[in-house]
């Protein structure tokens, strides 16, 4: 492998300094960098220059599919597959189909929200270079980290290192891929 270094990692003390570091990297023109925190930080998406999540649209499509499937299932069952008159009601009683349509829509949307989220995040991903960093274990408890990937066009081990230092990063280190 030509590229054995994943990138540089720096540690920050507070959510605020992490946010400013992200802004600094964004303003410098870096694209392939990431911040890690034990909880989501307000304003970080803008600080990193990220676009809005597309998850809502995925859920919308699946929800609409669920609604349609629920309606078609009930209509097909009641009108074609198993014609049985109950208390004189018409076979196509669409009013009575509303609850099941709604539930199937919610079911499809919920499944899309959860599995869509995992897919967009490419999880499960049990191996990741960041886990090679010895200090990274605290990122899920009280650590705030920035990583800059070696694949970023602006990456240079010396200059990026200096920038991270200037932004207030501590324990700066390279991480192997």
């Amino acid at each position: 492998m030509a590229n054995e270094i994943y990138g540089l990692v720096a540690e920050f003390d507070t959510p605020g300094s992490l946010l400013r570091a992200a802004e600094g990297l964004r303003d410098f023109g870096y694209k392939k960098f990431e911040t890690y925190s034990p909880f989501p930080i307000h304003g970080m998406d803008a600080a990193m220059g990220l676009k809005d999540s597309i998850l809502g649209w995925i859920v919308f499509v699946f929800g609409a599919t669920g609604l349609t499937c629920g309606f078609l299932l009930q209509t097909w069952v009641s009108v074609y597959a198993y014609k049985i008159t109950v208390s004189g009601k018409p076979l196509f009683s669409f009013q009575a189909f509303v609850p099941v349509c709604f539930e199937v829509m919610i079911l499809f949307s919920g499944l899309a929200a959860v599995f869509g989220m995992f897919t967009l995040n490419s999880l499960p991903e049990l191996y990741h270079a960041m886990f090679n960093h010895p200090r990274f274990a605290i990122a899920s408890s009280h650590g705030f980290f920035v990583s800059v990937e070696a694949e970023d066009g602006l990456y240079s081990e010396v200059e990026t290192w200096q920038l991270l230092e200037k932004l207030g990063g501590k324990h700066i280190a390279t991480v192997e891929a």
Partner: protein
Amino acid sequence: MDTQVFSEDPSRRQKLVLGGHTFASISDVVCKPIEDKAPTWWLIGLMASLSFLLLLFSMLGYLVWEGIGIWGLNNPVMWGWDLVTFVFWIGIGHAGTLISAILFLFRQKWRTSINRFAEAMTIFAVMCAGLYIGFHIGRFWVAYYLFPIPNSMQMWGNFRSPLLWDLFAVSTYFTISLLFWYVGLVPDLATLRDRAATKTRKFVYAILSMGWRGANRHWQNYERAYLILAALSTPLVLSVHSIVSFDFAASQLPGWHTTIFPPYFVAGAIFSGFAMVMTLMLIAREIFGLKDMVTLHHLETMNKIILATGTMVGYAYAMEFFVAWYSGNEYEAFAFINRAFGPYAWAYWTMVSSNVIFPQLFWFKKIRTHIPTMFVISIIVNIGMWFERFVITVTSLHRDFLPSSWEYYSPTWVEVCQFLGSFGLFFTLFLLFLKFLPMIAISEVKGIMPEANPHHGETHHG
């Protein structure tokens, strides 16, 4: 009124985490019960719960072997403790969804300390409810008839029946609640993975957390998913208990056939669920030393919700009687007079006193903030809400339109044992949850601490 709670200025708002905690110490406190050796009381509790679970399995085995005749059900009371307990459990579940979804949409930050706990309660309660609904059909081995599955008999369900809506509602509710709970757990499972001292522990939590690393690109989609799930669960929880109430309301029985049922059932469900959260939470915060995170402020807020929903339930009781009189329908009037003064009057007045009178004590701040009293009231509400379902189900059935078939229904020992056994299932799962999963949402609690605000410490509000 306590202006501190309602203050708009964040620096003057009631603190949600006390005791000067840091991000690291929150992880420590919440993970401690999981990482420590199981305490003796936990083992004793688990043994007791397991014996009740065994009781449940024996009763279900007996039921499958012998048939539904071992229950006290007979014409005209065709629904007894089976449906009563089903509605009881499903209602308890609703508080968990209310806390996790509705309070999230309303930005009620105090919910973060109790939502994990309440969601676990939801899932286990819905499992108990599902078990009841599965077995009450009698021939459990053909329960798959309920689902729209192509079969050799060319037979399909009746989608114009509320009972089939109920199946879709409850199974969707269970699936979505489980997913919502799991999504919330993922960052905390990663915390447990990173703290793990043994290889097995690390392996298991690593698999469960799926490689979560708290990257902001993950958090972005995660927060969106969480918001969407909350927005989906909110109408879902309202629909589930509305549909449960349709099981009754869509029939033509006096006492059941009323339009007030959906909102009345939803309010009652939240009422009973909060009482159950309160009962369990008071014990857990005492035992696990979580008083800094589940503060008196949290408990008081929950008591206010119990008071509000209890009052709604009381209003519904009164309105049912009013409508029975105002409608001029003599069958409806008979059903309600019979409810209050007939053979089941004891159950009716137990229900009224537990659900309407006792929660009214929460108007007093002294009682709202007195832990032993609120514990007792929460148990009274739990009992009262079970009786509510008993009163609705049984009193409407036991005197039907033909006086010669009037009957007084009592449960058999099998029904009683199965009911006790369902608590065994609930508490077995709950104790396992307390031992192996974080009972407080670690990442969410950290997120509402003042230090989590990126502008914390900046001196613009001197």
